[in-house]
């Protein structure tokens, strides 16, 4: 860049006398003002669409919401359809996914950040994790279908909640690992050295100091990852979440539905009344997401104040 401008300056003073800078200052400044407006508008486009989307869904969905909608089962009659089994299914998935993914993710992050030396194997793990974060979610669905539903079907119960939760766990694992690692990385080395100087072992330092200090960041990342899991549709369709279910799931091996699956099923129906049920389902889903995200923000603020 710099050298180019340099040669241009010499050209300007050269025998051709060809000016590089246009002297039309007012036109250039007018263009600048247009550009400033343009970049601002571009930034706002996304936010305006977001606002329109939220209003549209609230407009369609909120009138359809009722206590009956929350406690009823799906039905062939759109007006009688409810979200109850899907909501319970989503809560099951949320709980089990957290149970599987949090210990695994935090464990992997602690290993990579605190133990791993710079060997080719550890570098492979790192590249692998960042690559997994970019794999489309539907591919995880195919993985779950091949391994958890078919290969391990006798253990998981086939198209069961546990298969769905394991699939979602693998899907969000990279996110949890990356968030926890970033959080561990911000802890100054002096904390570790102080611990070792007092005779603590590596694990004792991790348990008593590093994990508590990394908690806010790791927790925020984890809850955001879990809220992504709640909204995932495609992998659950592939691992066989049911779209029409007339009972609430009884246990981890039960077949199940989930909020996004139920919404997808209603959206796919041609009758407009089902579309309204879908909108109401989306409102429920968005409220669940809003709650989990608020918890994440609340926890982060709480722990940040203490630290």
């Amino acid at each position: 860049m710099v050298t180019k401008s340099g040669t241009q300056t010499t050209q300007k003073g050269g025998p051709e006398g060809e000016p590089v800078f246009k002297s039309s200052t007012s036109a250039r400044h007018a263009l600048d003002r247009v550009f400033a407006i343009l970049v601002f508008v571009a930034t706002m486009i996304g936010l305006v669409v977001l606002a329109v989307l939220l209003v549209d869904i609230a407009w369609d969905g909120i009138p359809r919401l009722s206590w009956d909608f929350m406690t009823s089962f799906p039905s062939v009659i759109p007006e009688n359809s409810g979200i109850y089994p899907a909501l319970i299914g989503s809560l099951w998935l949320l709980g089990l996914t957290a149970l599987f993914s949090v210990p695994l993710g935090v464990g992997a992050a602690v290993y990579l950040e605190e133990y791993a030396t710079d060997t080719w194997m550890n570098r492979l793990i790192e590249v692998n994790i960042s690559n997994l974060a970019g794999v489309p979610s539907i591919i995880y669905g195919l993985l779950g279908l091949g391994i958890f539903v078919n290969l391990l079907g006798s253990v998981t119960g086939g198209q069961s909640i546990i298969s769905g939760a394991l699939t979602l766990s693998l899907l969000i694992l990279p996110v949890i690992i990356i968030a926890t690692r970033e959080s561990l990385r911000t802890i100054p080395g002096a904390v570790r050295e102080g611990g070792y100087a007092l005779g603590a072992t590596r694990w004792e330092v991790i348990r008593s100091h590093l994990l508590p200090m990394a908690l806010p960041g790791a927790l925020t990342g984890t809850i955001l990852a879990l809220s992504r899991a709640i909204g995932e549709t495609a992998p659950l369709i592939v691992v066989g979440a049911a779209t029409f279910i007339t009972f609430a799931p009884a246990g981890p091996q039960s077949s199940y539905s989930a909020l996004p699956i139920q919404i997808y099923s209603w959206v796919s129906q041609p009758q407009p009344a089902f579309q309204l049920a879908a909108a109401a389902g989306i409102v429920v889903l968005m409220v669940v997401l809003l709650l989990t995200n608020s918890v994440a923000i609340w926890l982060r603020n709480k722990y940040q104040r203490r630290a």
Partner: protein
Amino acid sequence: MAANAEQRGRSEAGMWHRESRARHLRERAIKIVLAACAYVSVLTTFGIVFVLLFETITFFREVSIVEFLTSTTWSAAFANPQFGIMVLAGGTLLTTLIAIAVALPVGLLAAIFLSEYASPRLRRWLKPALEILAGVPTIVYGYFALTFVTPLLRATIFPDMTIFNALSAGLVMGVMIIPTIASVSEDAIYAVPRSLREGAYALGATKRETATRVVLPAALSGIVAATILGISRAVGETMIVAVAAGNLAQLTANPLQSVQTMTAYIVQVASGDTGTGTLTYNTIFAVGATLFVMTLILNIISYIFVRRFREAY
């Protein structure tokens, strides 16, 4: 080494040493458990490759690979099925192109605004607000595309557009990937050294000229990385196209028509009842393998570009 430690433990059998040995063993056990957690990610990749490869090989025992890559008909559900992946890949290409046509200019301009124009306070508010767009579940975007964008476009600009069409799905997908492109580009633009901007100002360039002729070219590899990452997201995106683009597998460049993408095909088959081991069952893995390879290549290219801009300064 373990035997050595054990010997020492025995010869100087004091309290402290015994405890130290127990602690040492516990430390080793914990390290192994934590390493096992980290290896789960490697197993996941192996699992994906194994499952896709295994079922795809079974698929290619029935269907010739030449037909798969060259046929221009996809009729998997019919009596005499044809498997031309180009049809589904064409659907994916069309929706992806529309999405990038929206997300690249909008995301790039937003990135310029955030890094060059916005005050730090405004930036702190706008960035997370934009990130919300990436956090909205894709099924919600699908609903929005089908029940809001399509009727709006049919009522205004394109009255003869079909209910399921590539345009609405692509446009909404574009909005979804704005934050991806904006935030990766913004990182790259932000990383351009201040001295380059100051040099431009010193030569009499205006703010716009500095941003578009000095800062943007300097951040180009990061912007390319952002774009490729956005393409990869669009290629793998499933629910928006499954809901709004329809399930008509046809090779068309007309965005007002219904198309089926690779992801939408997998969803269509998985929503129905398909027995394990049937040809249809294998087909979704063959399509999935194609999708996996495509996104993998895109992610690797993007990674190379990201590394380049990080190394530059």
